[in-house]
């Protein structure tokens, strides 16, 4: 009888020690618990508040899955470099589901494919009609480089500073692309940290940008009604992606995967002869990659990699980067307002931080608050899509310089 009881208690004890609940209350388990709660907050923001739900929901669920102890879906130890390389054979042999999905992030496949879909969905007409918008898109990248200064002065390494700075580009795929390439040393900051910060702030664009926009512009400047944009011919729309690919790739080759795929997608759209490919790229493929990217990036947010002081630094510098990018775009918008004799509404400058199309919507919204008959949306779309190209170029510069 006692043998049966011993067997019973031993089995129960074994089951308990192998369970996630035991691990949750074991040493350091509280960190997992916190991360699970954080994932709930993100789910709430995505579902109840509608903040970037297509990305925030997969990321938050990936965060939940990876922080469930003993589930074994993702193994950070498999991604530690051995002799400067990841042992991909080991990943395929020992990895969980999320390790396999993370291969697309690590091999930098997902961000360019997302850009392909974005290219299919983007209309560059406002930019082609008003090429000066490119300058606003360039100015907003000041957020990236000024944050690089702050991060460098705070003692972050070159790779960490570059990865944090790219958050200022307000472009999730670009941030993931750059941080995956730069953060290879297994330091305290991971791609998951950067992606989390980038997507958090992108989701918070409607909260972060308006106060800065109102603080840096006068009511008179915000009331400027811009001239209607000219109609862009189909030939111009077809030439544009080809020209941008050639010019940018020749100048900054490291930006070619992102800009090349963005422009390829746009060429598919504008050519008007590849309806099936466009349909796949902007719907099925885009959705599949978004799910894979979101869940696998969420998986990299293991509690011990997130709950540390450096991640606090990333979040702080992230919001600085975002705010500086917005401010730089606005300041350049004000310069253009002066130079053109009041023909440019400076509010469209803040849309230069990418975050398509949310940043342009904010320009429209703030403009309409000042004058409800003012329609800035199409004018703001120019700097907005220019910001996508600008942040890809800035990413190329960072990747070219930091090794």
């Amino acid at each position, binding site marked *: 009888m006692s043998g049966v009881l011993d067997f019973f208690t031993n089995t129960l004890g074994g089951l308990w020690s192998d369970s996630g609940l035991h691990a949750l209350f074991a040493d350091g388990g509280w960190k997992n618990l916190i991360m699970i709660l954080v994932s709930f907050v993100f789910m709430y923001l995505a579902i109840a508040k509608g903040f970037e739900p297509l990305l925030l929901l997969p990321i938050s669920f990936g965060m939940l899955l990876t922080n469930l102890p003993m589930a074994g879906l993702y193994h950070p130890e498999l991604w530690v470099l051995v002799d400067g390389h990841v042992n991909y054979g080991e990943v395929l042999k020992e990895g969980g589901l999320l390790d396999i999905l993370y291969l697309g992030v690590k091999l930098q496949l997902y961000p360019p494919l997302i850009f392909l879909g974005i290219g299919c969905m983007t209309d560059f007409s406002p*930019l*082609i*009609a008003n*090429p*000066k918008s*490119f*300058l606003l898109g*360039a100015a907003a*990248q*000041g957020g*990236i*480089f*000024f944050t*690089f*200064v702050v991060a*460098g*002065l705070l*003692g*972050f*390494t*070159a*790779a960490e500073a*570059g990865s944090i700075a790219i958050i200022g580009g307000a472009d999730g795929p670009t941030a993931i692309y750059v941080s995956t390439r*730069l*953060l*290879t*040393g297994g*330091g305290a900051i991971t791609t998951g940290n950067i992606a989390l910060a980038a997507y958090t702030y992108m989701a918070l664009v409607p909260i972060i940008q308006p106060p800065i926009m109102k603080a840096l512009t006068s009511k008179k400047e915000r009331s400027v*009604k811009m*001239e*209607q944009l*000219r109609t862009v*011919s189909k*030939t*111009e729309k077809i*030439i544009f992606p080809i*020209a*941008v690919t050639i*010019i*940018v790739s020749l*100048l*900054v080759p490291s930006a070619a995967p992102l800009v090349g795929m963005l422009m390829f997608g746009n060429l598919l759209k504008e050519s008007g002869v590849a309806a099936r490919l466009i349909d796949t790229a902007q719907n099925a493929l885009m959705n599949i990659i978004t799910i894979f990217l979101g869940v696998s990036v969420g998986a990299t947010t293991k509690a011990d990699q997130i709950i540390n002081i450096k991640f606090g630094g990333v979040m702080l510098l992230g919001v600085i980067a975002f705010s500086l990018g917005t401010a730089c775009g606005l300041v350049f918008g004000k310069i253009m307002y002066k130079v053109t004799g009041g023909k440019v509404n400076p509010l469209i400058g803040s849309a230069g931080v990418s975050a398509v199309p949310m940043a342009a*919507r904010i320009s*429209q*919204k703030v403009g*309409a608050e000042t004058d409800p*008959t003012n*329609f800035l*949306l199409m004018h703001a779309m120019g700097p907005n899509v*220019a910001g996508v*190209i*600008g942040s890809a*170029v*800035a990413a190329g*510069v*960072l990747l*070219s*310089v*930091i*090794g």
Partner: protein
Amino acid sequence: MLSFPVMLADKVLHGTEKLDGTQIVSMTIIGLLVVFCALLILVVFLCVSGGIFKKASGGSQKAAPKKDAPKPAPAAKAPAPAAKAAVPKASAPAAPASGEDEEIIAVIMAAISAMGAAEGKQYQLRSVRQVTRGGSGRSVWAQAGVLDATRPF
């Protein structure tokens, strides 16, 4: 001071090293310069190509009216019969503002006459004037379209 070609040739900042003041300043200036130069080249390209396309489309637009030039004269008498066709008792034709398309005036008159016929009344279109809008310069329909498209934002 670091020069950009050198930086592109070898990655001069090692990812694991901490940055000194010179590196930070150089990187910031070079980064901003490269981004601005790249996008400035695109601005120049778009301005040049846009100018060429504008000229090309402007030329074809100028050529087009010449072909259609004889049309307005025969259409000048169109409004009254058109209005009468809609409602025989409808009144005299309006005095069209210079440059207004007479066919459009006929359509407006026909619509007003039809409305009047339903109520048993007769209306007279005395003049059609262009309204000067101080704002965007969009037509009422374009304004309504823009409003409809941007209301959710």
